């Protein structure tokens, strides 16, 4: 995904709701001029391909040409599906639930496409929907956990069958990979809510700090600070080795 095409993703709900802009800069946090550059409001960017397709779909739906709209929407699904699944899985650590979350997000995006405005790149708009859905699911899971015997996240991930794959690895390698991933997931879960979301958006969602800022309504410099702290904490928790 080119940096022009990419534009932000979801966030913790409160921040996402008041999402505003972010700056442009690309240099070190120590520079005052760079900060000013970063923290200025979002540009009226040149529309990305996805955004253009989304606008087209919105117009098609408005004119009742639903079949064509669905065909065009399938293109967007194909482009964003994998990234969406990566984000959802990192949030939920459950293949089936991540699958549902991604499906729901796409269906909701199509259902509300008429409310889409090109002020937001499609990717930003869609990822907000996805992350809000994931956060809702996490909350629901916590509510359920109050009533049922709690299970370790790693054990849940182990117990749930994946959709396939993993056959290529031998059992020992699979076990080691599982342990490594469980350790990693536990470390990411120990980041605080905002840090975790920012880290996931940036690292797993392929968003630039500017894009994350646009989603969360934070300054780009703030996003960079959160990212740095998240990475430092993860390195500390994982002993420098994931």
């Amino acid at each position, binding site marked *: 995904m*080119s*940096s022009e095409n990419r534009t932000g993703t979801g966030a913790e709900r409160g921040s996402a709701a008041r999402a505003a802009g972010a700056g442009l800069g*690309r*240099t*070190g*946090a*120590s*520079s005052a001029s760079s900060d000013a550059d970063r923290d200025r409001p979002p540009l009226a960017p040149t529309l990305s391909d996805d955004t253009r397709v989304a606008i087209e779909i919105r117009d098609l*739906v408005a004119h009742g040409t*639903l079949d064509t709209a*669905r065909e065009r*929407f*399938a293109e967007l*699904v*194909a482009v964003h*599906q*994998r990234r969406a*699944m*990566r984000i959802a*899985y*990192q949030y939920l650590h459950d*293949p089936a639930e991540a*699958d549902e979350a*991604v*499906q729901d997000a*796409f*269906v909701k995006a*199509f*259902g509300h496409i008429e409310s889409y405005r090109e002020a937001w790149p499609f990717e930003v708009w869609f990822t907000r929907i996805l992350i809000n859905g994931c956060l809702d699911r996490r909350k629901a899971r916590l509510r359920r956990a109050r009533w049922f015997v709690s299970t370790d996240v790693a054990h849940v991930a182990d117990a749930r069958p*994946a*959709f*396939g*794959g*993993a056959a290529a690895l031998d059992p020992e390698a699979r076990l080691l*990979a599982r342990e*490594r*991933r469980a350790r*990693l997931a536990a470390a990411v879960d120990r980041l605080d809510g905002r840090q975790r979301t920012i880290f996931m958006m*940036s*690292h*797993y969602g392929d968003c*630039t*700090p500017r894009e994350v800022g646009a989603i969360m309504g934070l300054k780009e410099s703030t996003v*960079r*600070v959160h*990212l*740095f702290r998240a*990475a*430092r904490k*993860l*390195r500390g928790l*994982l002993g*420098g*080795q*994931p």
Partner: protein
Amino acid sequence: MIFGARHLPEDGLFECYLAEHCGESLEPPAAEHLTDCAECRARYGDLRRFMDALRTEADSELDEIFPAERQRAQQQQIARRVEHLRHHARVISFPGRQPGQSAPIATSRVAHHWLGVAAAAGLVIGVGLGTAYYSQAPGREQQTVASQSIAAVEAPAPVAGPELVPDLVSSINEQFLSELELALERPHTSELVALDELTPHVREVRVKLR
């Protein structure tokens, strides 16, 4: 942590990583320093390896849990759901009058009368025939559909001769129904007493049969 003025601080190194990760160019002073300072270059290498490993791990995990065929299936599911999304709920017309049809007139009312009379006659004839049939064959009451079905479930394979089967079945039925009744009799709920009184009990039926 700052490693003296000569070395890049940790956040400076992370900025370098972010710039590289996002496809941006490094700040010239930082880039120059990384070129000149082996220690910072090594620290930067460690940081980059760590961050890249996190990402690689996530990607390989995703490949495992979400292979290509699963992606296709998900696309199809999304397409199906999207297809149903904007279909308005289908209103099924109530059988009888179609929206454009006029109200039925007097002829249909006559037909309704005949229909009622025929139904009543059928009921009377049915009750009469049923009574006559059962009064001629008193042993048949035991062979109800319910008892047959229970017997089919409860009775073991008929190893005994055919003449033993009715007795065996009836005793099993009685035992089963009695157990049921006992179980139901235990907790008496005051609200259900009236209903209970209206319900025929197995022992009463048994007495009548004998």
